[in-house]
């Protein structure tokens, strides 16, 4: 297994190409069923690995899988995501993660600056590496393309660029002579991605916004898919144009209905606004104690994922579903 520790020990920011190819070659890429439970899938994530999280802000966040990782008390995960919301608070407060690579980190504009993020980063209990949004995307894309870096034209001239230090470089373009920024490829150990539907092999179809999920899946050394429902391979083959993630990138498929709650899953449910307001209120008084209490009640006490949903409440579930499905009503 090519883990983060190994890459750290080689001292390279970018995973060496031969190592990347070797790890890919070693994977079972056959068309095989890989359906398992949340707990079994959590067992595939090793302490210290780099875990990329699909979706963006409150959308298609793989909450069920994060829930399982927190319950399994993983340690020292490095987490990357395009934009990080409440799941970032929970990953820090649970002790699962002490290093987040993202472009923006707070619950959402309407709820203000995350006090949990503030506590852990200001007290230096956790590291928040800030990259521009496009740069995070191009890092995954370079990883997906099997090239070591991607040229781009932002981050220069700013303190965002300065702060990441020699993780970015600039160079004169060999063709035109103009200055470009070079962004290092990012090949996560694992990508956690939630989708509306996939088959038992891991052929995944996404509705609505894709965010960075396709690049992330191609870049990662393996993918854990959670899905609202598992459909037949025949159904996938009737609309292959809707398939966005191919089965051979996927290591595990978990059926997790309402798997993003209280976040959104396009066309199925909108954000659970009342639950998100409740969370914001809990952490506004005492960020750390409020967040730990939330983890205890919602993440550790429930015996199963359905019990977690039960804790969110039938009213909240139905309201989010009514709003979510309304896109199909016009």
């Amino acid at each position: 297994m090519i883990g983060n520790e190994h890459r750290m020990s080689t001292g390279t920011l970018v995973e060496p190409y031969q190592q990347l190819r070797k790890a890919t070659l070693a994977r079972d890429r056959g068309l095989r069923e890989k359906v398992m439970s949340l707990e079994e899938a959590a067992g595939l994530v090793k302490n210290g690995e780099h875990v990329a999280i699909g979706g963006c802000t409150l959308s298609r966040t793989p909450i069920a899988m994060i829930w399982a990782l927190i319950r399994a008390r993983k340690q020292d995960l490095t987490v990357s995501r395009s934009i990080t919301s409440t799941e970032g608070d929970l990953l820090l407060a649970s002790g699962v993660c002490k290093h987040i690579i993202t472009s923006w980190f707070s619950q959402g504009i309407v709820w203000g600056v995350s006090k949990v993020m503030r506590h852990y980063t200001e007290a230096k209990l956790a590291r928040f590496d800030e990259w521009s949004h496009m740069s995070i995307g191009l890092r995954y894309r370079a990883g997906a393309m099997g090239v070591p870096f991607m040229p781009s034209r932002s981050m220069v001239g700013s303190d965002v660029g300065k702060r990441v230090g020699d993780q970015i470089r600039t160079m004169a373009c060999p063709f035109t002579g103009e200055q470009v920024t070079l962004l290092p490829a990012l090949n996560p150990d694992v990508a956690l991605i939630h989708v509306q539907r996939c088959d038992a092999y891991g052929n995944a179809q996404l509705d609505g916004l894709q965010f960075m999920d396709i690049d992330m899946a191609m870049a990662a050394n393996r993918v854990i898919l959670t899905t609202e429902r598992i459909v037949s391979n025949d159904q996938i083959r009737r609309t292959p144009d809707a398939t966005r993630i191919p089965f051979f990138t996927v290591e595990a498929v978990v059926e997790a209905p309402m798997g993003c709650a209280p976040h959104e899953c396009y066309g199925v449910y909108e954000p659970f606004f009342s639950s998100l307001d409740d969370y914001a209120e809990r952490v506004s008084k005492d960020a750390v104690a409020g967040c730990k209490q939330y983890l205890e009640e919602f993440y550790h006490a429930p015996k199963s994922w359905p019990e977690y949903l039960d804790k969110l409440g039938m009213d909240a579930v139905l309201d989010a579903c009514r709003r979510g499905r309304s896109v199909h009503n016009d």
Partner: protein
Amino acid sequence: MTKHDRAGAYTASELLAVMASRLLKDGQIVFAGVGIPLLAATLAQRNFAPHLTILFEGGTIGPFIVPGELPPSTNEQRCTRRANMVLPITDVLLLLQRGYVDVGFMGGAQIDRFGNLNSSFIGDSDNPKIRLPGTGGGNDISSLTDMIVAMKHEKRRFVADVDFITSPGWIKGRRTRAEAGLPQGGMWRVVTDLAILGFDDQTREMKVLALHQGVTREQVQENTGFELLFDSKLETAEPPRPEELAVLRELDPERLYTA
């Protein structure tokens, strides 16, 4: 806040949205954040710019927001209603780099005399007083296209030098932006609840172009943490019209972004 009382029967946020909307032009491609930028762009579409296209960072091209269903960020399904296309995030941001976007439009936490924005750290970045959420796409948008920023005019927000340049404006003025490797775009307009500001063509220092009705030069200067330039043809902006306010109130009946 008494600022908006003197301006009449509308909130400071409504004033910002109306004034900002008037800066947009029909046919433009506008990369908009949620909140005031989205409201202003939608208002422009309704009033005078039917061919204006909104892009959202979440990946949406040309959506129309359903009144009363404003999105909490640019990344939820509410951002995709009646859109022409949805793209991955990276690709919609690359439209900026390719040059398809006329205006980037966002809010700001802290701005300096050269139009640099800070949304990352208050205080020293190694030992911050407050860790803010960060750039999101702000750094990309401000690096790659012309910018409009809408924000409240307060001394603590308008500072001589920002603590941290998250989104580059004119950096240190004159040609420093281009010399830093950013030959395109730059801070174009700053819309506040007191004035509309631009930047001197040569020095790139912030300059007041127009005052809102009932606002004095002195008030603007008092609420700014550095010496402002004033345009020689300083104008007074026309106050929000009832029909403009009506559109905003239809879009945001719960005053999520216009309270």
